[in-house]
């Protein structure tokens, strides 16, 4: 390695280190945030509304089904012994949501320690908490100064379950800040003998909640490492391919190998799950597929006619076998025969006849004005268009006519045909160039928007963070 190369490499290296450091300090860039939660489901027996009287419905008019555990149905019909399943769920959120949640959290914390001076005398707990909530919200909003919108909630379901009642009359002298006032109000309610449950004010994700179950309210919005690493990987691959423009290099070759491996496997997986399982296995082994892979598939009997494509498919794979490769030709023959027949009819009907049909029109075109008179100017140009079109089609066909030498009149017509073809190709040239550039623009947008956070066309981040990476 010579000195020049070394210098170049170290400059690139320093640049990369600076970039990474900048990305993960402050607002940074190239990060992906998600909201984590839990998807939980419960199996309940629901009354049937819309199915016909027969079918797979129990005679009592109920249907056993899984529903979201937070839905009304679950609350109404699920018992402690109902089967339950849960897993973690992840929803992506824009960085703006995370930034705003952080600001709102800070605003709420600050607001909680400001004084709350209202005297509560003989009102019920519900009204008192509502007054307190609104006052806190106002304070928090003032703290956030429009950069975020904090919310304050009272989780009455949890409080209710713990024994607190809205109608409990309380008397509190709320000297001190919001936090202390809340404690005092709930203490007063406890003193009334309603409950002795622990209550807390939890602040997370820009939301303050008064509840008894603090454990469930851990911050849900946060950095997703797997997706952030993915994003950087995507950037590395993008730049690796672009590096080929400078010169061929191992990084490009690696990226190329990855795309070969991944795409082959990707297509294989998709064709298996989207086509082979529902359309082939679902026909041959409906019970197995319905029970294990596609529970939504309707019931049905095996359709043994589908053994034919299964066998053809198997024969096709013989190509990989060391012997009997000729058997794959049987499948190839099926493919070729199908394609040939499909194309023969479709091209004659859709291309040949329809294109002739579209060209046959009067050479003299009349264009009417709104009042029913003929517009001479427009008619002239419409006729010119139609005549040009017919001349064009005929002369191009003459060029592609191989039985006669291109001499004399035929030669002249063919020459006109070539001109038409050249204009056609010119148009194709322009359109192709156009398309290629749009693709490049999309890649640059990815780099500038998703990674560097230089631009923010879809308002993913607050304005302050948009050009953050420059500073």
């Amino acid at each position, binding site marked *: 390695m010579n000195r020049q190369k070394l210098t170049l490499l170290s400059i690139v290296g320093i640049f990369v280190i600076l970039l990474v450091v900048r990305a993960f300090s402050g607002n940074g860039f190239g990060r992906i945030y998600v909201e984590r939660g839990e998807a939980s*489901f419960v199996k309940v027996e629901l009354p049937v509304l819309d199915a016909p009287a027969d079918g797979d419905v129990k005679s009592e008019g109920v249907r056993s089904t*899984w529903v*979201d555990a937070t839905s009304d149905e679950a609350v109404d019909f699920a018992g402690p012994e109902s*089967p339950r*399943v849960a*897993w973690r769920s992840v929803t992506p959120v824009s960085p703006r949501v995370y930034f705003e949640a952080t600001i709102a959290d800070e605003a709420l914390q600050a607001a909680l320690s400001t004084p709350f001076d209202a005297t509560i005398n003989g009102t019920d707990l519900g009204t008192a908490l509502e007054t307190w909530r609104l006052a806190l919200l106002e304070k928090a909003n003032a703290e956030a100064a429009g950069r975020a919108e904090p919310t304050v909630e009272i989780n009455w379901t949890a409080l209710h379950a713990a024994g607190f009642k809205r109608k409990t009359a309380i008397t509190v002298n709320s000297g001190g800040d919001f936090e202390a006032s809340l404690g005092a109000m709930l203490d007063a309610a406890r003193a009334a003998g309603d409950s002795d449950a622990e209550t807390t004010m939890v602040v997370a994700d820009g939301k303050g909640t008064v509840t008894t179950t603090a454990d469930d309210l851990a911050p849900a919005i946060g950095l997703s490492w797997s*997706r952030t690493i993915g994003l950087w*990987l*995507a950037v590395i*691959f993008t730049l690796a391919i672009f590096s*080929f423009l400078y010169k061929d290099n191992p990084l490009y*070759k*690696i990226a190329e190998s*990855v795309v*070969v*491996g*991944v795409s082959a*496997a*990707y297509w294989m997986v998709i*064709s298996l*799950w989207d*086509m082979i399982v529902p359309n082939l296995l679902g026909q041959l082994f409906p019970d197995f597929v319905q029970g294990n*892979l596609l*529970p939504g598939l309707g019931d049905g009997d095996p359709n043994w006619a589908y053994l034919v*494509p*299964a066998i053809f*498919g198997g024969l*096709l794979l013989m190509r*990989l076998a060391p012997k009997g490769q000729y058997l794959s*030709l049987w499948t*190839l*023959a*099926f493919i*070729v*025969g*199908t394609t*040939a027949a499909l194309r*023969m009819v479709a*091209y004659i009907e859709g*291309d040949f006849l329809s*294109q002739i049909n*579209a060209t046959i029109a009067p050479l003299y075109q009349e264009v009417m004005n709104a009042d029913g008179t003929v517009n001479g100017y427009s008619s002239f140009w419409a006729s010119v268009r139609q005549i040009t*079109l*017919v001349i*064009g*089609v005929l002369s*191009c*066909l003459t060029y592609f006519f191989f039985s006669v030498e291109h001499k004399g009149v035929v030669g002249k017509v063919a020459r006109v045909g070539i001109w038409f*073809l*050249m*204009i*056609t190709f*010119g*148009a194709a*040239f322009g*359109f192709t160039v156009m398309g*290629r550039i749009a693709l*490049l623009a*999309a*890649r640059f947008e990815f780099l500038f928007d998703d990674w560097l956070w230089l631009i923010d066309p879809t308002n993913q981040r607050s304005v302050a963070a948009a050009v953050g990476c420059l500073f």
Partner: protein
Amino acid sequence: MKRIVPLWITAIVGVVLIISNFVPWTRSWGEEATTWFGIIAAVAFVLGGGSLLKVHLKKISDRNSGWAYSMIVLGTFAATLAVGLFKIGVSPNPSFPDVPWSGDVQGQGTPFWWVYEYVFKPLTATMFAMLAFYIASAAFRAFRAKNFEAMLLLGTAFIILLGRTFAGYFMTSWIPIDGPFSGLRLEELSVYIMQVFNTAGNRAIIIGIALGIAGTSLKIIMGLDRSYLGGGD
């Protein structure tokens, strides 16, 4: 035998499919055949994966130049296949949470989706985006107006390139839009070229191709053209 069976398969499938276009009660035969075709096409993707495996395993065992890249191909192939086939990290379908394999392998958040989003997508998209650079370089170094035909081609390309952007509008906006020369405005001109000249040229090409395809298909179904069976026996 090795050639007769495929020829018959082609002929029978071809004739049935053509007839099913004209004789309504045979239509279901045609439907059946085309559905099978789809399944076989899906198996072809499996074949693609298998061939890739074969080629690269051979490269590695032969220690061909660049066999290390073949290792990368195989590694990414195996990893993608594994997360996809075994639905690794895929949550079940919310309507059937008790069936573990019912989940959507392409759903957002699954490892298979991750491979798509962060590997497959940037790589394939960037590969094609590179063409913009090549086309620029070719524009400078290769596209020559060496004769009248080439001039016609490039001239049309210029009109389209300008007429399909704001530049065309900007350059010829001084031509009054309802005057007799409004057709000379670049954006109008590009529409005219597309709808008359381009349509005429492509129509002739399309008619020619349709005839060519009909001829070739006919030869294939009749067993006159056997090139798809490969040379030799």
